[in-house]
Structure formats: structure tokens, C-alpha cells
């Protein structure tokens, strides 16, 4: 049994955006804080820290999950993807570019989480329709946009509008 004592730091190893990373964490350290403060990966944002706002959403082993409801010690050996993984060497990826085009963000606080949820959804359901996209976005709070720009951006890259997929 892996037993990690409180108050001591334990080495955690996993892959982040395809790269092997490691760092030390007490059991109580949230994954969101580990990403930002230990690894310096500030792309993942932190809003509520109790699973409501969605700002901290990342992909873990092919699922969109809240990084504020995970402890760093729980992701030993897992494969994590964060918003830093999205842009290509040529610039924004398709979804990011669509967000820009449709004003899917203003302050951008909610954006990393929304991008990761939509990225996961696109992998699972490339033809998701507007109702499904709105259902998935219900797991995020955006205080700026009113969501319509985000939905338009998503519809641009999901299949049903242009029948691309």
C-alpha cells in the first residue's frame, strides 16, 4: 500500500503535455496548485476551489476533470494535458482561433478550463450539437461573455455546422 504521511513532501511523477515531470507535494496539495506553483504551469486557472466554476479543468487520462478536486499525489503515473498543450508552433489551434474570432473570451479567466472541456468533448463527440455543447458548458462559469460567443466558437469546430467531420 502506498501510504503518504501528512506534513511530509512526497515525490510525484506524471506526464504533463507529453513531457515527464516531477515535483514534491504534501498530500494536501491540490493538483491545481501543484501545476501552478510547483511546476510553474500557470495556464490552468483557479477560481472557486470547490468544483463549481470549471476554471481549473484539465484532461487526465482522456477525461476532462477538475484539478482543484484532485490532490497532486493522486496523479502519480497519469497523463495530464493542460491549455498549454493546445497552441501549435504556428499559433492558435482551430478551437482557440474560433474563440478569438467569436469573442468567446473577454477577461479570459474561465477560458483555459472551457478550452479543455471542449477539447475533451471534441475527442469524444466530434459531432456534438449545440444542446450538447451547452450541456457541457454548464460545468463552467463565465462572468463576461454570456456564453454565446463560446457556443458559436465551438459550433465552428464541431461537426454539425459545416459537416466537416
Amino acid at each position, binding site marked *: *500500500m*502506498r*501510504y*503518504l*504521511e*501528512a*506534513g511530509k513532501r512526497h515525490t510525484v511523477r506524471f506526464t504533463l503535455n507529453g513531457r515527464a515531470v516531477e515535483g514534491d507535494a*504534501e*498530500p*494536501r496539495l*491540490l493538483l491545481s*496548485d501543484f501545476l501552478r506553483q510547483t511546476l510553474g504551469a500557470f495556464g490552468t486557472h483557479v477560481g*472557486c*476551489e*470547490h*468544483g463549481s466554476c*470549471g476554471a481549473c*479543468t484539465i484532461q487526465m487520462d482522456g*477525461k*476532462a*476533470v*477538475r484539478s*482543484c*478536486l*484532485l*490532490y497532486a*499525489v*493522486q496523479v502519480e503515473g497519469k497523463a495530464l494535458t493542460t491549455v498549454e498543450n493546445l497552441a501549435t508552433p504556428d499559433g492558435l489551434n482551430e478551437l482557440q482561433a474560433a474563440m478569438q474570432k467569436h469573442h468567446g473570451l473577454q477577461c479570459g479567466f474561465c477560458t483555459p478550463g472551457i478550452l479543455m*472541456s471542449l477539447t475533451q*468533448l471534441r475527442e469524444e463527440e466530434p459531432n456534438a450539437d449545440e444542446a450538447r455543447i451547452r*450541456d*457541457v458548458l*454548464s*460545468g463552467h462559469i463565465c462572468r463576461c461573455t454570456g456564453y454565446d460567443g463560446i457556443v458559436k466558437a465551438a459550433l465552428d469546430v464541431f461537426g454539425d455546422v459545416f459537416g466537416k467531420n
Partner: protein
Amino acid sequence: MKPAAFDYAQPDTLGEALALMAKKGEAARICAGGQSLAAMMNMRLATPEVLIDIAGLAELQTIDIANGAIEVGAGVTQAELLAWPKLAEFQPLLAQLLPWVGHYQTRARGTVCGSLAHSDPSSELPLALALLGGDVFVRSQRGHRIINAEDFQVGMMATALEADEMIVAARFPLARPATASAFEEVAQRHGDFAIVAVGAVGNKDGVRLGVGGVADTPGVVDLTWPVADAALNDFAWSLGGADDQHATARYRRELVRRIGRRVIDEVHNALP
């Protein structure tokens, strides 16, 4: 919004987990998906000394049909049960209700049994267990027992589990032939805590209605056809809801009457 310090244990077997539970008792908490527990720990509403993470235990990852029920192991996430290909055929109520449990992003981690153990009055899965007359299979180092839904949830976020016990599986009875079901809820945002959640299962003789979000535990009533408004009204009053920051008791009664009527009609129309 950071949790208090705790020891983190990741047992390799169920036996190890139960031994640790027996040793630590009240000081330990089981964590499967952690979608309720971690939030409560962040708010320091829960401060376990030891967190026992059972998410990796392969023996708890199973969905089976046995003894006339769908048996859902304690490691199975809400998303996994929702994606189980036989769900709509064997228990349509669960297929109707699971999309209302939390959000896409929390269903990916949150487990079915964890939601039952958490026993929030507004959550959907305890309502499903009560409405369908299911039970939970519970283990400890001392042995095992099966607890019926009505005996399991004893109050708001309170269950019949002893300090050394854990749920290893939840059992939802299979849908019977010639029955129909429906589910609907009202929340401030889809996926948020239900202000009122209503499910119904019926056959040619009558309909069983279950309501969550009003009382401390799910309320269930059996009604015969045709269901009169007065019967629905009596049921709404019998739940004894209170005013809170989300809604008044009066508004909740109105929702029980209106959504109750809608799901009853839906069941009636869907019956063969």
C-alpha cells in the same frame, strides 16, 4: 480553500482498505472520485486524518447484472455507468437521471456509490435508489451486510454506515416489463444542486413518485391511476420542506405539484 493536512493511503486491495478503516475508524474517509468529499475538505467541512483512495482498486470497477439488479461497484464513475450500453434497456430511469448528476467534468470522476455515501438531500442517485427500492452492499473487516435504500439514508448527509464500513456496490433493481419511467429537475443551473428533483416509475396499476431536494431524505409515494391533483398536493405537503437561500417551501411545493404532474403524464403516455 485548502484542505487540512491528512495522510494519503492508496491500498492495493479491498482487504487493505478495510483493515485501514477498521484501524482508523472515524478518522478515516474513503475517497473514490472525491467530487463531493474533496470540495468539502477544501472548505474544511470535512477534515479526515486519513484519506483512503479506492479509485485504483480493480475489484470495484465492475458493472454486473446479478440477482435481478444492476450491481455498480464502488469504483464506477457516473460517466461510466451512463456510457454502459445496456443501461437504457435494463434500467431506463438511471439513463434518464444520470445526465442531471453534476456536470460532464464531475461525472468523469464522481462515482455512483460515492454519491450515495455522501447522501446529499438534493442529489439524484439517492433518489434513484429510493425510488427503485435498491440497496447497498456494505463491507467491513467484520463482515458484510445489505442495507435497503430506506434504511440506508437516515438524514441529511447521514447514512447507516458504521465508521469501519464502506459501500462496495450499489444495486439498482432491473426495470420490470411493461413499466415506464421519467425524471426531471429544477436547479439554478443545469448540474447544480436540485431545488426539486422528481422521478417516477409506473405500470398499468399506478405510479411511484420520488422527490429529492425538499426533505432531508428522498420522499417516495405510491399512487394509483388516475392520479388526482389532491393526491399530488397531499404528497407535496407531506414532504415538509423549509425555506432556504434557493427557494421557499411554498415554491418547492408548487414544483412538486407541477413537475410531479409532468413526469406522471410522461410515464402514463409511455406505458405500453
